[in-house]
């Protein structure tokens, strides 16, 4: 009997900020054998893209642009 277990996504706070942790377990139990196979998928770490709300510096460049209407 095979079973794939995916735990609910966990948001956690680390010293680097907030991240998302996903844990999945792939469990295979064969009742005809004496033994259990357990496979573990890699923990996925997803970090939310940080948005930089700093206002940039602007120059004063101009080009020929715009139509009079």
């Amino acid at each position, binding site marked *: 009997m095979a079973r794939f277990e995916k735990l609910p996504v966990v948001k956690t706070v680390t010293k680097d900020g907030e991240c998302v942790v996903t844990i999945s377990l792939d469990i295979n139990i064969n009742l005809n054998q004496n033994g259990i196979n357990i496979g573990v998928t890699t923990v996925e770490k997803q970090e939310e*893209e940080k*948005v*930089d*709300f700093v*206002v*940039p*510096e*602007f*120059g*004063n*460049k*101009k*080009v*020929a*642009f*715009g*139509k*009079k*209407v």
Partner: protein
Amino acid sequence: MPVGVDFGTMNLVVCRRDESNNFVYTRETNSFIEMEVGDRFVFNMMKKSGVPLIERQEAGIAYALGESAMKIAYTMPNLELKRPMKDGCLNPKEKNAQQIMSIMIHSLLGNLKNDGETLYYSVPANAINQETDADYHGKVLDGIFKAFQDDAGFKVNANPINEGLAVIYSELENKNFTGISASCGAGQVNLCFAIFGAPVFQFSIVNSGDWIDRQAARAVGESEVFVNKEKEKLDFTVQQDSLVLRALKTQYEIMMQRTVAEIKRGLETAGNKARTDKPIDIVVAGGTSLPNGFDKAFADLVVKADLPIQLGEVLRPQDPLYCVARGALVAAENAN
């Protein structure tokens, strides 16, 4: 001489008065494309044919600006049309696009008559149906205008004005600046109800021109640029025979219904503050209101909605693309 600026998701418009005191406008599309300058010949030909270009020689990249960029993107779909603004506001993740937009608006402003000229520019209200950051947007625009200097070194004294309120200043002077506006731009519908020029409510909805294009494009399997071009043929007074136009009309109807519903909700929430003794006009404006018959279709929905006010007329100005900039100029002229 004061200046009014409409900072729209699709269009940038500057409004001034000429020597005869008439309103004059300079307009361009708020878009650009990024190209690799592999072929110097093509680049030079574009320049000769009047395409506004900015070159970053160190990166081997050039940017074509404005309406020229839209035409290039329409004929060369492999080039992505970039828009510095989305859903009515600047995207904080697109810092490069903000720099390009700064160059575009500085170029549109041209030269001033006096140093420290009063300038009013349109800003959106925060949307009620999606997270937008009108505060960040406002700060970036403020930074753009603070950096501006014309050939004589003259600077502007720039101030924001809500986009919906600007439409009321433009179109309802004969009604003591009292009424409701729906500025239907590309990114948002900005709604405002003002009494004697003072806002009773102002907010925006993110479901306007771009949303219509996106939904219709998805429905018929075409590009948004193509659908946006086809929208010029849309006519609410006749049966639409093409699939694209039928899809556009359907999305328009959803957008109008939502807009009218939000006007009603705004009036109900305002309650006593919305009380006047005269009929209230509703002005629809903006590029998304351009199709023939839009105003009549919108008026029909307004009547059916049974708004909690004494309804006047539903109006659309002769030049719905320019009234935000015109209203901003009116604000600038009356600022001192």
